[in-house]
């Protein structure tokens, strides 16, 4: 890091009286330097993934009838809850589909990018103590927050611009340039609002984790308000208008092209930024608005062995994952009857389903289970990679200098990854099974869906095993496991629809699991997957035992 925070010229005879914004420009360049890889990756990933999904639309819905069948699905409040308020349904063009159904999930990633970046540059810097170093120089009181806002808002504007250029250049029927710019702006607006939310929560909470969590909770609330509002009536209800996500959707790009709802987003951002500034002047550096709570002076009985520690470290995230997965699984199951009707009107999906085999419902359930399997694999990798961050941050060292062996320590995190991901698939099976069997009036469905979910466990374990093998054998390359996750995700979600070649699907661990309940059960791949996972885990444990412990200190 060779950034100079204050230029020598600032020290001339009379020290210049710095305003509250002194140093903002330097800080902006400093933040851009630190994020020179991270932000572009986020932005490109979001834009490219959106474009790739849009390109697939003409293949999925080649005829007007196909598209109208899709539109008819929006009469169900449950479907509107996970897509949009319902507009442009009379003439459901690709453009209408894009803005009505895609915006709702694109903004999840945009909001995440924004609030994480915002907290990273503000509260995280304070928590690690680096902010003190910066604030002791000629840096104004409001400079950090301002610089972070400039960077994050700028990132969102670039994202919106690239999104508009990307979508417009596809030359798709009904996806015009003007509307694409509105879609880009609507996407960016959510990111901008949540930059403001991050600016406020970073002031409130003493820890970066807590600040991100609080901002994430605000997003969840905004998302739920919109979902609830959109469920009440087609076109969105009052509650939809209480949410920044709702405002973005109410621009109705490619249908009505309304710019004015974005004024609400701009207004809210200004209010949030002002609130953030105000709070930041009313507290000390490093302090929060909420006092950190005290805890027990002695460790409870469960916090004793290495497994007790691992469980304690993963506990709250495991609980949240379980809760969300179960809730979503339950929600998806209720759509079972709708799906049957929808798919029967859709030629392309019928082809895809014919390829998988079985009834429409079975095929649909098997795809949903596969999506949840990818989610569980993400959890497994996150849990396994905790070992890496513990090692890097110097928290592995005190544990490994006690009577805990390296394999046991790594095994404790691995156990959470393996048991946790299996539990997530169990909850998927139960949640999806209960609601689907209720909706279809078929009690047997519960057991079939549960079986289908659990069949994915060996493949998920293989993904976790890859993470452990990398950790043990090539620790610096551990992050590459995310490439595996990305591949598994793309193949899992789009493979069947886009008709990927067999070899491409076989390259994904999840590609080997029989797609129950549609396909027949075959045990061989599951045994092979389990053996492969065991082999990789043993290799990872042996590699870790043989290598030096790495820590930054």
């Amino acid at each position, binding site marked *: 890091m060779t950034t100079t925070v204050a230029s020598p010229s600032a020290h001339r005879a009379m020290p210049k009286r710095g305003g509250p914004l002194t140093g903002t420009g330097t800080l902006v360049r400093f933040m851009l330097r630190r994020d020179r890889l991270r932000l572009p990756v986020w932005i490109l990933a979001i834009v490219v993934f959106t474009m790739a999904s849009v390109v697939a639309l003409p293949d999925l819905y080649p005829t007007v009838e196909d598209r109208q069948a899709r539109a008819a699905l929006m009469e169900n409040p449950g479907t509107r809850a996970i897509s949009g308020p319902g507009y442009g349904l009379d003439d459901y063009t690709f453009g209408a589909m894009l803005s009505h159904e895609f915006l709702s999930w694109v903004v999840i990633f945009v909001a995440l990018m924004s609030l994480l970046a915002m907290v990273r540059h503000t509260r995280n810097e304070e928590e690690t103590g680096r902010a003190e170093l910066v604030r002791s120089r000629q840096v104004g009181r409001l400079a950090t927050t301002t610089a972070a806002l400039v960077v994050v808002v700028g990132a969102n504007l670039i994202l919106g611009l690239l999104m508009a250029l990307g979508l417009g250049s596809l030359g798709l029927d009904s996806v015009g340039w003007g509307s694409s710019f509105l879609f880009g702006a609507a996407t960016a607006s959510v990111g901008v609002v949540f930059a403001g939310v991050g600016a406020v929560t970073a002031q409130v909470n003493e820890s970066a984790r807590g600040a991100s969590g609080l901002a994430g909770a605000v997003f969840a609330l905004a998302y739920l308000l919109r979902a609830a509002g959109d469920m009440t009536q087609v076109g969105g209800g009052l509650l939809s208008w209480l949410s920044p996500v709702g405002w973005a959707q109410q621009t109705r790009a490619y249908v009505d092209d309304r710019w004015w709802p974005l004024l609400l987003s701009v207004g809210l951002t200004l209010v949030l930024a002002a609130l953030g500034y105000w709070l930041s002047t009313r507290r000390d550096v490093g302090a929060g608005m909420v006092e950190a709570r005290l805890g*027990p002076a*002695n*460790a409870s009985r469960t916090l004793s062995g290495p497994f007790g520690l691992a469980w304690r470290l993963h506990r709250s995230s495991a609980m949240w994952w379980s809760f969300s997965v179960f809730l979503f699984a339950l929600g998806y199951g209720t759509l079972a009857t709708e799906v049957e009707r929808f798919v029967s009107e859709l030629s392309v999906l019928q082809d895809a389903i014919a390829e998988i085999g079985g009834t429409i419902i079975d095929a649909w359930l098997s795809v949903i289970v596969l999506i949840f399997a990818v989610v569980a694999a993400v959890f497994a990798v996150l849990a396994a990679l905790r070992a890496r961050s513990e090692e890097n941050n110097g928290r592995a060292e*005190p544990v490994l200098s006690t009577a805990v062996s390296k394999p046991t320590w790594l095994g404790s995190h691995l156990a959470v990854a393996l048991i946790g991901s299996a539990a997530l698939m169990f909850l998927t099976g139960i949640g999806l099974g209960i609601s689907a069997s209720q909706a279809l009036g078929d009690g047997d469905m519960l057991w079939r869906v549960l079986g289908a979910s659990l069949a994915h466990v060996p493949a998920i374990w293989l993904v976790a095993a890859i993470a452990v093998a990398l950790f043990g054998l090539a620790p610096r390359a551990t992050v590459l496991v995310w490439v595996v996750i990305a591949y598994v995700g793309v193949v899992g979600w789009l493979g069947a629809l886009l008709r990927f070649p067999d070899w491409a699907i076989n390259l994904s661990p999840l590609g080997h699991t029989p797609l129950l309940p549609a396909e027949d059960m075959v045990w061989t791949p599951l045994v092979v997957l389990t053996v492969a996972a065991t082999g990789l885990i043993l290799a990872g444990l042996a590699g870790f035992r043989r290598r*030096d412990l790495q820590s930054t*200190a």
Partner: protein
Amino acid sequence: MTDVIHTHDLEKSYGTVMALDGLDLCVTRGEVHGLLGPNGAGKTTTLRILLGLLRADGGTVEMLGGDPWADAVELHRRLAYVPGDVELWPNLTGGEAIDLLGRLRGGLNQTRRDELVDRFDLDPTKKGRTYSKGNRQKVAIVAALASDAELLLLDEPTAGLDPLMEVVFQEVILQMRAEGRTVFLSSHILAQVEKLADRISIIRQGKVVQSGTLTEMRHLTRTTIDAHTATPVTGLENLNGIHDLDASDGRVRFAVDGEHLDAVVKHLGQFGLQALTSHPPTLEELMLRHYGDEVASRGEG
């Protein structure tokens, strides 16, 4: 007397950087041994090899009669460690971390734990992320000292402590020694090692350049003498081992090599001593002599 730690020709490199370059070290049972050296000399690397966290590239190392790399878990039951940079889990309280680390080692002495928490004035109910550097260090120190370990490995244990707490730390270490435990601590703070250590090894660029008791080392170095006499001192320049002689009316100042001290003091006695001050070499001076060439070459650069 048996050796608790014994290394011979120990080598460790990170890429092209040679961290340890033939380190010979010997720590005897029951002593407080200080490993003294500037930043980057290889102190932490030595400790991490002793803990089996790093594997030596060459040479031999034996600790408590075992191989630190192969017998890590067995040996760790018998030792306690305080890292140089203490990192705690943000969501665990200090008290929880102390108990956890103690249990992972195989149990801790509850009475002593509570007593140490009290003596170090540590609030065990605060979360890890809210502790200052000094308080994180206290957590690690209490966790290590509350154990019944026979060997304590401490990497710059007082770097973040205030002077008051440093005194408490010194008292506890001396108490540990009285109980017959072996303490091996690294430091670049000379005064601290001076107060605690029975024996010292000076490490520089991955090698132990000198090892022994402070007295033995002082023997190898110069004592500064400041004397007032009734009659002017003569003939000093003819004696061996005199340096930097500065004589004025009835007063002489000079440095004398340890082994010639006796002869010089006898010589001074002939001139009617009125006042005599002698300054034993401080560890700073010891270090300066060992790093003097480095300092000099840096000065030229």
